[in-house]
């Protein structure tokens, strides 16, 4: 019973973070049709900004968090303006490749200017002791991350489904030319999507980092992979699916880690996650919570 309880707790805690990253991935995908492979590293870059503000400037955590989110948004907007905007007619695969370039650029900058691979400490936003569930102490930060992931998912879902702007975002991914013809300002939509996606990534990185305790180059890109898995499992067209997918991936990882605790197979958890992705793609490629339709009226 304790094992099951611990698996549930572990799954939910990590699932919440994966859900946040998945939300960002799905948001960008829904808005542009492209996968952003730099999604995680944008979060890492934001974390370095937070570390700098907290540690070097001695400011409180909240100032670092604002800096992290602000830097991430600026990065997203800059990438959109400089690269994505000029690729409006290009294929989505081309845009995805460009995001790989952004990922490599960010890794290089972090390594060069933030002390190489040396870990930089990250503090908890809430320093109170946590709640013990089935022998696991769940920190307030982790609980907040789970709540935040759900809130962000709901918020974006409402935005995209209930507002004209949101519908314009959804439509832009389907047919950017047609969207412009009906008066939707494509640049504004594109900037929103990339900026919001970056902000969500920074949020995810901010709330997982204290659990690990430090940030290093490439730190959140590893989490991005789990987030991508969550997005695929939940459905790349579904924001609620992204959150649900995060929980599923979190539970799969936790269960595998517990069941195969004595396994000599390296990283058996990742193997399990990839098997889940494979199964979903083969059996239900639209994801567990598929979007209804694929036109402009598709639910987020």
């Amino acid at each position: 019973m304790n094992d099951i309880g611990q698996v549930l707790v572990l799954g939910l805690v990590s699932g919440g973070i994966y859900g946040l990253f998945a939300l960002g991935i799905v948001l960008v995908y829904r808005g542009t049709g492209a996968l952003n492979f730099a999604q995680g590293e944008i979060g890492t870059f934001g974390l370095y900004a937070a570390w700098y503000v907290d540690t070097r400037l001695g400011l409180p955590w909240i100032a670092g968090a604002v800096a992290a989110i602000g830097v991430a948004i600026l990065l997203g907007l800059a990438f959109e303006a400089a690269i994505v905007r000029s690729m409006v007619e290009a294929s989505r695969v081309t845009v995805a490749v460009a995001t790989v370039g952004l990922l490599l650029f960010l890794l290089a900058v972090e390594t060069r200017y933030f002390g190489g691979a040396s870990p930089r400490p990250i503090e908890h936003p809430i320093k109170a002791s946590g709640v013990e569930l089935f022998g696991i102490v769940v920190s307030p930060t982790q609980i907040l991350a789970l709540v935040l992931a759900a809130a962000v998912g709901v918020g974006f879902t409402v935005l995209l489904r209930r507002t004209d702007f949101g519908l314009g975002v959804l439509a832009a991914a389907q047919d950017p030319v047609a969207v412009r013809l009906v008066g939707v300002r494509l640049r504004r939509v594109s900037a929103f999507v990339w900026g919001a996606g970056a902000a969500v990534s920074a949020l995810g990185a901010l709330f997982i980092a204290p659990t690990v305790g430090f940030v290093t180059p490439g730190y959140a890109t590893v989490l991005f992979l789990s987030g991508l898995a969550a997005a695929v499992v939940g459905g790349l067209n579904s924001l609620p699916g992204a959150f649900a997918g995060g929980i599923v991936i979190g539970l799969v990882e936790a269960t595998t880690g517990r069941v195969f605790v004595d396994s000599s197979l390296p990283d058996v958890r990742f193997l399990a996650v990839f098997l889940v992705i494979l199964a979903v793609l083969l059996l239900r490629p639209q994801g567990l919570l598929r979007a209804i339709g694929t036109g402009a009226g598709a639910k987020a």
Partner: protein
Amino acid sequence: MRTRRSSVLVVVAAAACLLLAACTGASRPQDVDVAAGNTDGTALDTPTDVATGDVPVHEAGPATPAAGSTGGKARTKAGTGAGGTGGTAAGAGTGTGANTGTPVPPDSGPVPARTALFNADEDRVGISGDKIVLCAHAALTYGAAFNTGVDDLKVYFDAINAEQGGIHGRKVEITYENDNYQPDTAVQAANTCKARNPFVLLGGIGFDQIPAVRNWAETNRMLYLHHTATVNGSEGKQFSFSALPSTERMGEVFGELAAARFKGKKLGIIKRDSPNWDPGVVAFKRIAAAHGIDIVAERAVAASKGNYLEDILEMKNKGAEVVWGWENALAATEIVKQAKAQQYNPTWLLFPFNLTSQTLGDDALNPKLVGVAMFTAYSNGDYSGSFAPYAEDIREFERQYAKYRPSADLKGLGGDLLFLNWTAMKALHLQLLECGPDCTRNRFIDVMKGYNKRPMPAACQIDFTRGNGHLGGWAVNVMETYRAPDGRVNWRNTDSCVEHLL
């Protein structure tokens, strides 16, 4: 008749003289040989050996070899290599005989080296009339984590160059290449070093990097002096040497520590998932099995894993009261930190770095962390207690840094790292002095292979005469955390230069 008798007497007298000369000699060959570094048992007649004042090993060494050890359980007082830095140069760890830094030039020509590993063209690479070139591969990429940079590592030889004119009139030029804590990039770093034509390549900390570079050194005929590594794969390697205990040895002593102090307690292991780290675990388990230690949990973790929650839970769920963290300082710090967040407080057995103790602060005292190291403890400004036997070395270290690198953070996270690098450099200096003015690579190997002494108070006995002549480190230091006079939590020796704890 009278002439024949005289002739017989002369012959008998001559025979008697010859017999007497053969029996007495100048000294016992093996004493002088051992002290001066010869291994083939031949009597020495080199002015260098005599001039450096080498004496039999039991009289050699710095002022307080015995005082350096505090444990009553040590079988020997042998020494570790003075080398082995946290991220920099290797355990060069040797030194001259009784003196710790005052060479006496030879007064006759050089003696041919007994070692013939390097040919004539190779023998003098990296050493000229006015310069010795050294190059090291080290995990510079983690320097920032220890608040240290490359220039912080060069202070010892900066001081020697400035104050003593170098070694036998040769200025020491040392450079560092980043091995990124990875085997492949370590080999790249070694190649970069090779292009500088160094006299010797130094290998910094890295259980995974060193075996790779050791193989490279063999192929590239590079004299390689490295930090602790597994002996697996070292068989037959001619070009590599280490004055520090092997990975296996470290695991063995950790096992003895567990048996000596924590017998009857449930023990868990969080270990690095690497074939180069595993030999330490094998050695640990052998000792554990022999002494009835109950290992209740064991988890292998990837390098830089980051999130150790599941591993910690495994230890906690299985009730491990003592956990051996067979990982590097950065990972160990995170493991303990994350365990504290889970309100799990076993006794931790770790590699003892001030990075860990200072980062954890009071958490490193409740309970105290316990460690085993191939280097000695350092706590800035503390010359008392277990630091007293090598306070002289500490003061010299601090004096040099105050003069040549005042910005170095000796009080902080990397102070002990800089000290162990400094002791390594000093030991290497002493060894190069012993090599003499006509030092070559072959002669340097001669010095190493016959080396059996304690180079300085901050180092332990180094004995290359045991084993195959390529491994000189056998003793370690056992440490615990404590609150230093300046309020920081650092490490201090509890047992110095011990080979066994049981």
